[in-house]
């Protein structure tokens, strides 16, 4: 079984590495704001239709544009859910979504989290799924990529106030990148068995003798962008474990690749913009090291099985099967679990609540690292670049030199922004978890007793504040308390990070770019990769080990000590 897993992991990393380069080549002109000449005519027509003038924005203007655009997006999505009963494409006659749930879901999809307190097939009309949820799948992804572009420009422009134009970035990323990729992937999914229809649910008498109603819908179109945009919000409650969302081993592999495709491509695009592709590969390598280690850890934990069930006469040698699908097995489930939480996707092909204690701890920890191991589209890169600044700062302290990254001197203001970015999400996660295990409405949601109940809460806030969206789904989160608190955590986890990132971008863009000398620390070699991985792991470990000890570690010891 381990051999099967290593083969699959090797195939996955090979395909991902091969696709990072072409994706980077596709992304780099968009990031640089310099489209190839043959695109100019179409591009100016597109901008004219959209009524956009591609004028440069300073960081404040860029940040305001991000906030306004996303606020409007959230309002529109809230309205669509509340009004879906009177809107078209509603063959099942779904009524208005309850206000608290609609609030939570609107924020959830706008912030690229796609936390789902509702069950899709019994709540949302086809219109809400298509024109509401899937649109935000595109736009939240485009927002993240745009912010990453702005930070890349900050590093690579000299004495400039211009971070690019947010409207033009969102439009171009949506139309030139996300739309064609989604169209292609959606059709492959249909060929493999993912439905795409506007007809009502299917009723029939099953061979087994019972009546069966099968939820259908425009699933494939939503599925494609759900993964490419690292959104993760499923059409159905069971998400990518549902045979209609993820029917085969091939779709499962494509889903995992789709999740990492743009984050991996962005590292390469960054290298191209920096004029030194090794800078991009260094980030890619740092991400890959953490990812591969965690994937092996999850697989090792899950294939051990559950000794409490083995005591009842269950075959423990085939692994921990509760909450997994047979067509994926231990190997493809473990890999997907790691991919979806290393990236801030949150689609699931297994129920994370039923993972072994340590198999559930690793995905939780990957989220807590700040979603920088490939991470969300855009957000993974800007998060990792923030850690890169931290890494050169730490190195600078060690040798007593002014830290530099890509020729930009890192100064006090920059480090304040870095600190804000790194401290915001842990504050949200730990404060939210602590409050919820002290307050009655928080405790009321727990589905599992003991340490695992605490893990459910910790996982929920880790997922929300880091904009992942996966869950230990036993937690009854569709309550006024959790809808409100997790909604706030998602909003702040997204935008209280984006604003300082853009401030950092603005500050960097305004600086001179210093020439590289023998005294500069190289940021493309093994030493820097080690330093970067160390910074990410150290911050993550110091912040979360006490909380993890109370949850999954305690649970593991209880299970295996008996």
């Amino acid at each position: 079984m381990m051999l099967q897993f290593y083969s699959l992991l090797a195939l996955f990393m090979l395909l991902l590495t091969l696709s990072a380069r072409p994706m980077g080549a596709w992304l780099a002109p968009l990031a640089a704001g310099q489209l190839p000449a043959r695109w100019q005519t179409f591009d100016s027509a597109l901008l004219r239709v959209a009524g956009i003038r591609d004028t440069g924005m300073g960081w404040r203007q860029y940040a305001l544009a991000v906030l306004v655009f996303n606020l409007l997006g959230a309002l529109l999505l809230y309205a669509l859910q509340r009004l879906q009963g009177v809107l078209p494409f509603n063959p099942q006659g779904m009524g208005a979504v309850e206000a608290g749930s609609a609030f939570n879901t609107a924020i959830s999809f706008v912030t690229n989290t796609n936390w789902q307190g509702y069950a899709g097939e019994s709540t949302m009309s086809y219109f809400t799924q298509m024109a509401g949820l899937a649109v935000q799948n595109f736009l939240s992804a485009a927002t993240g990529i745009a912010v990453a572009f702005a930070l890349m420009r900050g590093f690579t422009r000299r004495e400039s106030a211009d971070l690019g134009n947010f409207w033009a970035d969102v439009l171009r990323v949506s139309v030139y990148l996300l739309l064609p990729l989604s169209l292609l992937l959606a059709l492959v999914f249909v060929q493999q068995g993912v439905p795409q229809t506007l007809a009502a649910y299917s009723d029939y008498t099953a061979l087994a003798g019972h009546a069966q109603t099968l939820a259908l819908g425009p699933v494939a179109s939503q599925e494609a962008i759900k993964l490419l945009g690292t959104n993760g919000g499923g059409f159905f409650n069971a998400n990518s474990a549902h045979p209609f969302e993820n029917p085969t081993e091939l779709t499962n592999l494509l889903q995992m690749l789709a999740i990492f495709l743009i984050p991996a491509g962005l590292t390469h695009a960054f290298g191209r913009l920096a004029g030194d592709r090794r800078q991009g590969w260094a980030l890619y390598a740092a991400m890959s090291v953490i990812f591969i280690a965690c994937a092996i850890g999850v697989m090792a934990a899950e294939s051990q099985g559950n000794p409490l069930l083995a005591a009842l006469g269950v075959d423990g040698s085939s692994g921990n099967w509760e909450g997994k699908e047979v067509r994926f097995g231990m190997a493809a489930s473990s890999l997907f679990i790691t991919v979806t939480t290393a990236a801030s996707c949150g689609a699931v092909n297994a129920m994370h609540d039923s993972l072994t204690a340590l198999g559930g701890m690793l995905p939780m920890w990957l989220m807590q690292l700040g979603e920088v191991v490939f991470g969300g589209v855009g957000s993974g890169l800007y998060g990792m670049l923030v850690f890169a600044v931290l890494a050169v700062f730490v190195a600078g302290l060690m040798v007593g030199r002014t830290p530099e990254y890509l020729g930009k001197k890192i100064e006090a203001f920059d480090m304040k922004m870095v600190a804000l970015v790194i401290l915001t999400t842990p504050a949200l996660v730990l404060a939210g978890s602590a409050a919820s295990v002290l307050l009655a409405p928080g405790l009321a949601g727990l589905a599992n007793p003991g340490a695992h109940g605490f893990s459910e809460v910790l996982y929920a806030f880790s997922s929300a504040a880091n904009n992942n969206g996966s869950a230990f789904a036993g937690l009854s989160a569709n309550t006024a308390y959790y809808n409100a608190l997790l909604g706030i955590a998602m909003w702040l986890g997204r935008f209280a990070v984006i604003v300082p990132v853009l401030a950092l971008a603005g500050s960097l863009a305004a600086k001179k770019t210093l020439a590289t000398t023998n005294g500069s620390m190289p940021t493309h070699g093994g030493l820097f990769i080690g330093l970067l991985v160390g910074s990410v792991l150290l911050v993550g470990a110091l912040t979360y080990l006490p909380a993890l000890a109370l949850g999954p570690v305690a649970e593991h010891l209880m299970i295996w000590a008996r």
Partner: protein
Amino acid sequence: MQHALSGTATPTATPAASALWWPATRLLLGLTLLLGLGYPLAVTGLAQWLFPAQAQGSLLQQQGRTVGLALVGQAFSKPGEFWGRPSATASTPYNGAGSGGSNLGPANPALAKAVAERIAALKAAGPLPAGPVPADLVTASASGLDPHISLAAALYQVPRVAAARQLDAAKLAQRVRQQAEQAWFGSDATARVNVLQLNLALARS
């Protein structure tokens, strides 16, 4: 935030509000039309044209009547049928409009209790081979609609099904093996069987 950060490099003045709200509204509505209607309807049109069977959900017909979907499991429970995975879907097992798993944690006593009951039900339904129970046969799947069981779980049920249908157990096991699908990079230990298609094949013969 705005105030606290003043005094740093801020080259562009904050624009008038109208310069933000109007382009944001226009872009949001325009992209909603393109990505929220144009895109899914285009995929629907192309899918219905290129892959009509899959786009409708891959229905399986028997004597002109839909008896199931190749991709979705059913709640088989008779001794003469192969059983699928236990299902934790909302309200009834294998509810195709309420997918989901049990979400029971590994140490939850409710999980051990449910598994013990399923083992008892298997024992009550007919003869079983010696040895441990295949884990996937007594644990709930993630979707509650899992169409497959492991090859081991199918072979484990052969004595019961053979007795109920008065078939030769060795020949039945042979047929089960023929229906098995190999997993990528897998072995017999990771092979699987589609339960509905196995039962359909049995019903036909």
